[in-house]
């Protein structure tokens, strides 16, 4: 672009420069959600096993079958059925559950608060403990081997193993926590969900600690930090002002993506602890072939992940001028 057009279009060009990455991030997230939901929908639609027989029974006549098929909208091609599902889903209508004979939305609504409660508790543990542990290990070289070893083991403990050990020791042997359920009311919920959130957060805490430690170490080795130390600034001030602040960006990305993935992790933990959230509902719905429920919860998990990831990209753009120039993450 030559200089004459640039000066004419500065406002426009600027709007495009700032706006285009935002549009790209949002459309990328929307596209991902759309593609995954269509593929999942199509896969579930092609599954062997006819939902019609479950509605009208095995001994129905051909006319009854055809009528039921029409009433369920199953005589339409899959793309049309998908668009109808999508239109209804955007209005909060995910169809009816086959096993519970209830609206899927009325099954999900009471359970989602339990799941979110669990996820938020785990997220707090992950960010607080993970960042503290990683920053400590990254700044104090003497402790690094011990913390590295803790991270190495912690990152390798699957949530279902952690869950079993926690139930066996803290719930059964010591009796400090309940073995089952999600509890009622705020404090009771925290009491019930303490062990599940620890099981859920363990490996991810180690992961965030690992990223934090690597990032703090990298920043601590930079010239401006050495200069600051050389100028005689207090180490704690150098750490806060020059190391932690610069190290925060990769930590933010890593913990954000971790938290986004927690809803999927909650599937395993809720099952292990018998917590009645959307994750354990999904696990129960799979062998029952309750497709409306499977579809709705799967999409919820993907949409939450994609939304958080897009927000992270936007946050990164705001915080890091280099990412702004490059237009988004990769």
């Amino acid at each position, binding site marked *: 672009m030559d200089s004459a057009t640039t000066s004419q279009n500065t406002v426009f060009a600027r709007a495009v420069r700032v706006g285009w990455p935002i549009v790209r991030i949002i459309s*990328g997230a929307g*596209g*991902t*959600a759309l*593609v*995954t939901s269509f593929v*999942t929908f199509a*896969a*579930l639609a*092609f*599954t062997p096993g006819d939902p019609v027989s479950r509605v009208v029974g095995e001994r129905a006549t051909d006319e009854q079958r055809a009528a039921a098929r029409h009433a369920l909208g199953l005589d339409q091609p899959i793309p049309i059925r998908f668009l109808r599902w999508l239109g209804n889903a955007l209005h909060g209508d995910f169809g009816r559950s086959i096993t519970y004979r209830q609206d899927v939305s009325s099954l999900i609504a009471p359970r989602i608060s339990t799941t979110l409660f669990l996820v938020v508790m785990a997220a707090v543990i992950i960010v607080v403990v993970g960042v503290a542990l990683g920053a400590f290990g990254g700044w104090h070289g003497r402790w690094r081997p011990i913390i590295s070893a803790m991270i*190495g*083991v912690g*990152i*390798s*403990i*699957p*949530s*279902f*193993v952690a869950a*079993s*050990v926690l*139930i*066996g*020791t803290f719930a*059964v*042997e010591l009796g400090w926590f309940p*073995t089952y359920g999600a509890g009622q009311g705020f404090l009771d919920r925290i009491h019930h969900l303490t062990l599940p959130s620890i099981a859920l957060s363990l*490996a991810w805490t180690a992961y965030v600690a690992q990223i934090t430690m690597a990032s703090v170490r990298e920043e601590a080795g930079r010239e401006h930090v050495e200069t600051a130390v050389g100028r005689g600034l207090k180490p704690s001030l150098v750490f806060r002002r020059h190391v932690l602040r610069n190290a925060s960006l990769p930590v933010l990305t890593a913990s954000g993506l971790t938290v986004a*993935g927690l809803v*999927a*992790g909650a*599937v*395993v933990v809720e*099952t*292990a602890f018998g917590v009645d959230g959307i994750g354990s509902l*999904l*696990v129960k*719905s*799979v*062998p029952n*072939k309750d*497709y409306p429920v*499977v579809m709705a919860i*799967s999409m919820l*998990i*993907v949409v939450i*992940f*994609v939304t958080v*990831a897009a927000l992270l990209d936007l946050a990164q753009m705001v915080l890091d001028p280099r990412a702004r120039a490059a237009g988004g993450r*990769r």
Partner: protein
Amino acid sequence: MTAVPVSGVRLARISTAARRIDPILATAGVVCALLVLLAIAGPWIAPFPPNQTDVLAASQGPSATHLLGTDSIGRDILSRLLAGARLSFLGPGIIVVLSTTLGTLFGIACAWWGGFVDSMLTKAFNVLFAIPGILMALVAAAVFGAGFWAAVLSLSLVYVPYVARVIRSAALQERRRPYVEACQLAGMSGLRICSRHVFGNVQPVVVAQATVGFGSALMDFGAASFLGIGVQPPQAEWGLMVSDGRTELLNGALQQSLSAGALIVLSVVAFNVLGERLSDRTGAGR
């Protein structure tokens, strides 16, 4: 480039490498080898058939006959652990072979052709990145029915983009090297350059990535079996055993869940450490 200084540098490097055999790498390697050996020989060295029930000796603690006790229907836990090593390793093994093969092919294809192929494949990978492994396994179980293969194939698919991303960036570096152009000028086909030279040079990265991937696959496959959508009872598998042990857990008998869980954690630690050390050596950090 003259031969003498190069060989001098080489010799110096080799001797320092020989002096510093990394003890952690060696330990991790030995533990991994032992575990793989266990997975192969497990069923033969098990003292009892893994599915033999003895109702009279159900839910027993450790004893001389049953070293780790018995489960709620009287099966010997040690025998089930030994026999279960096979499926616990076979699942993740197939996952790693499939995802590494596909991921390497796609990664090199992205780097070699660039442009449209690269951007399309990268878009597809970005979609796959948004699907957590366990969710893919659940949907696959809903579509194809729960079982070993549904879990293995769905998890393989989830792992492809992770491999492809790493291989793509490694192969891109190779693509820019002058020898590629030299080969092209010599009339070598793209396929031959990729398979002979580019693949050969990114191979250490592939191996390191596959080793770390095996650890994660072991965790995810175990989780699938734990949820009842992987290996099906009465077969023995560690994730399933952690789940089976939950009834005994409530009666205060930890052995089954704990021992199966400990073996999973030990295997994941060993393969993670091995993979990380290998990738440090190849200089292909994340």
